[in-house]
């Protein structure tokens, strides 16, 4: 029988993979994909809690909002990555290094 625990484990795994990707990836697009994993981990949590423990549709509505916000965020982020590419011909984050100190 699949219960809320199984969903939480999947979500925790997604979250960990996302954080791992954030820390290890150097390509800006891969980093954005890792961030999507983190957001979707939260979504799985929200929907699972809404279905199994909390009752009501609050969690599912929250998840729907998160999906929309994530899309907006990626739109802005990709525009910025595109500008990075135009200015330096690379999507590699290690090359963005003029600001430091």
């Amino acid at each position, binding site marked *: 029988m699949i219960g809320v625990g199984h969903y939480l484990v999947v*979500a925790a795994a997604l979250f960990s993979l996302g*954080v791992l990707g954030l820390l290890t990836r150097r390509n800006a697009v891969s980093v954005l994909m890792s961030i999507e994993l*983190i957001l979707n981990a*939260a979504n799985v949590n929200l929907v699972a809690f809404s279905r199994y423990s*909390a009752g009501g549709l609050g*969690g599912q509505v929250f998840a729907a909002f*998160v999906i929309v916000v994530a899309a907006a965020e990626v739109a802005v982020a990709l525009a910025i990555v595109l500008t990075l590419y135009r200015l330096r011909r690379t999507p590699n984050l290690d090359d963005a290094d003029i600001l430091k*100190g």
Partner: protein
Amino acid sequence: MHDLTRSLAWFRPETALALGLLAVVLVDSTLVAWRGFATRAIAAASLAVALGFVLELQAAGAQGTLFSGMLAVDALASAFKLVLVAAGLLTVLAFSFRNSRELHGLGQGELYALVLALVLSCLLLAAANDLVMLYLALEMVSLTSYVMVAYLKGDRMSNEASLKYILFGAASTGSMLYGLSIFYGLAGTTSLPGLQEYFAGGVPDANRFAVYTATLLALAGFGFKVAAVPFHFWCPDVYQGAATPVTALLSVLPKAAGLAIALRFFYGALSIPRQGPWDLSGGIDWPALLMLVSVLTMTLGNVAALTQTNMKRLLAYSSIAHAGFLLMGIVALSENGARGLLVYLAAYLVMNLGAFLVVTLVHLHDGSFDLRDYPGLYRRAPLLTLAMAFCLLSLVGLPPFVGFLAKLYVFAAVIEQGMGIYATIGAVNAAIAAYYYFKVLKVMTIDAGNEEKPPLRLALVDQAWLVFFLLANVVPLFYWEPIEAWARGALVHYAGR
């Protein structure tokens, strides 16, 4: 239906800003020659109208929730809204596309639309009473700030700054969201009063770990907004890469809104109000956690600022250090702490915007943000140097400047709770900070150099604003009664529950 009509009546400041935003976008798309001037006027007008509505809210003493509990209307939210709208209005009026060399020749409409969107989202964040609203408002603040930082499109520094900002921000708010989802799972509700009810009922030991993890993750989001260590890495780069007026705005608005929601979250959900010090609920000692963050923030900010020569970076580290002092108000977990936070924010607003205005004006005339180009300013621009001196002394926290009273409030609140060591660390930090603020002052007044350069010809408007910031750093001290009353009145909501 009744809820909706009543909500709209208390939603006037936000409505004014939203309408102003639409008007700016419309006017900007007409392509008439004077649209730059018009968009700025519309932005200033809608901020002024919003300010009037906030004052009306405050005078009416409105209490309650809007839109089925999504937003809170109480004295605390109104007080934060006053600071936020005032910050937006001062920035729009004191800074312009004329006096910022970086913004010369760029389209104005988009930036003013973004400014209005930023103020609007900060108002929503400061009043959020539900985890959904909290997350949406936080993301709206973030998205508008990312775009504002990237405004200098062909500039590599601006691009790099916004890239670092968005990656860092998305990671922080993502982690925060994961934490919020755990809170939802525990309490079965997304409303902050619902969370308070749940935690007040006592948390079973089995859930302790989950609460602790969720709090830590939520702290990532708040910490990112207020630029607290260890979520501060974006701050110096973003402040340096963004156009200076944008930096000035970002140094006040998201920080103030982040502190407002942190206060609302920690006081409103994770503690139980009482007379005097409050009780913790949820079984975790979050003030100790925040105290650690606050100590690290002020120490790292101040130590890193010591060696900076770029004025924007220096002010960035200084703003990180001030975030540490501001957090003292939340750590105190008392009404005096919350009051100290409000007073500190109001003072921080004038001293920080004033310092950024001086930096902008020097860059307009000399084209440099480098402290090594600052010698001789005393002779070339006496008024500007005097205004900078007042802002810096206020940032140090010396009497008779407003920064002194701000520090007095938060330190008193912390000492009152018996956290003497914490206050001592704060005092040592204030002394370290004095070193680099005085260093800037020394370079401007005593150091020799730039003898051949002509005096700065400041525009009349800029001179007027310098005088304004100069006075704003001193005069309030002699009319303290209303400010004290304002800050005291802001806590009505918490005392009443």
